[in-house]
């Protein structure tokens, strides 16, 4: 069985080719993968859905463009959900690029005719307070006063003059915190400082690498967590607004299947050749 020997020493580029096809072809397909909604994502969705109109939601953007493929869809569907439920949104970032990502997401959401019709006003329905250096210290100091932590918003307006911020002093006036995180500082710090010290209510969206690390905090300290692109897709499914993450899931499924297929082939070849060596 020379075939299997050759299979074992297969050129990596053949595997690369399979991967690129597995990722790209499904992008052309309109078909979607059946996505099971996990309780952790449902919990986050319900927490937002149960907020009465006018509730204040704080969103912290703690990631940069490198993790945008995983976290940007979560930001989009979360904004859409908030605005369609008439919630007020306060945006901050503990990563320098975070508030920029937030603005990109806002631009996208406002293209939706349903949201556009609401004619949302900056300063009244949503604000972007920008980035602040200091990591967990920023959270800590927001616990006593958001106005002193963020004296001005992203474009330099005084925070105290924004109508929405007039009613918000600290976490006591925030009904829900949503954290999109790709590492440090991120969900861990929000749990330790905003939740453990100021009893805030927190939900999170994490990169797939990071998400399992948050499991021990659920449900007491963290309502739930969206893990990677799949978490984003699940949120879109419950919100009945399938968007980018859902459309990408087919590519995810096929590429995962390709990898598993290669693992099986590799093991098959390995056992066949080893069996032969033993007999000969």
């Amino acid at each position, binding site marked *: 069985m020379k075939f299997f020997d050759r299979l074992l020493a297969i050129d990596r580029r053949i595997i690369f080719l399979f991967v690129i096809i597995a990722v790209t072809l499904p992008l052309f397909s309109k078909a979607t993968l059946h996505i099971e909604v996990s309780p952790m994502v449902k919990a986050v969705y319900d927490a937002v859905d149960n907020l009465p109109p006018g509730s204040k939601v704080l969103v912290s953007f703690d990631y940069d463009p490198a993790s945008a493929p995983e976290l940007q869809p979560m930001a989009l569907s979360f904004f859409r959900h908030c605005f369609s439920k008439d919630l007020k949104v306060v945006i901050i970032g503990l990563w320098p690029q975070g508030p920029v990502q937030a603005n990109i997401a806002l631009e996208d959401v406002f293209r939706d005719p349903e949201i556009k019709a609401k004619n949302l006003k900056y300063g009244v329905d949503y604000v972007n307070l920008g980035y602040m250096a200091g990591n967990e210290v920023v959270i800590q100091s927001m616990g006593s006063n958001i106005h002193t932590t963020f004296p001005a918003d992203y474009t330099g307006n005084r925070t105290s003059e924004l109508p929405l911020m007039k009613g918000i002093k600290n976490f006591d006036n925030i009904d829900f915190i949503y954290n999109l995180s790709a590492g440090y500082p991120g969900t861990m710090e929000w749990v330790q400082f905003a939740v453990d010290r100021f009893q805030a209510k927190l939900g999170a969206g994490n990169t797939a690498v990071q998400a399992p690390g948050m499991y021990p905090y659920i449900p007491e300290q963290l309502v739930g967590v969206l893990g990677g692109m799949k978490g984003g897709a699940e949120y879109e499914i419950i919100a009945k607004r399938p968007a980018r993450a859902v459309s990408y899931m087919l590519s995810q499924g096929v590429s995962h299947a390709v*990898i598993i297929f290669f693992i099986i082939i*590799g093991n098959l070849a*390995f056992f066949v050749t080893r069996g032969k060596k033993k007999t000969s």
Partner: protein
Amino acid sequence: MRKTLPFALVTGVGFFMLVQYFIPREEFEIVYEWSLDWIIVIGCFAMLLGLWSLTMASVHKVQRKTPGWGYSIITLAGLFFMLFVGLYPGQASLVRGSIFMLLFEYIYIPIQATMFSLLAFYIASAAYRAFRARTVLATILLLSAVIIMLRLIPLGPLSAINQWLANFILTVPNMAAKRAFWIGVGLGATATALKIMLGIERTYMGRD
């Protein structure tokens, strides 16, 4: 001056940082905040050191005409263009829409994102090459990885079982092993920090 002072500094500063943790008084707090700022500032200057080393390495390549010296010119050009555009006085470089940020958006981000996406290919080839059920340990590694990966593939009725299994792995054995790992690393790092402060571990300072 050459040897004794640095080690005295390490021990002194180290013990201050250790002791201040237990003393909440504001005098200690202020010194603590200073030293954190200093570290950041020193790091900022160390970056200058890196910039210098990069420039010199590239210049040397060009001077000696080592193979591929042309690329060093491109590197230098990119570097100085970025510095010029970013530090040109009288403009806000870090605001979206500035030339500096446009370069960031259309040059830096695509290359960085693509470099990262290459990992998708490498992870596939590593899985193929390394995930062979040679030993018990390799088999456990392989099975656990496959169970987690299968979550993304619809398996009909088997999906529910796999979902439960994946969740179990992540919440129980995963947590247990991570804790053991962290406790081990915690003690090891504590021991190393202690060795540094006591002046036992001193290779990092170089020798004369």
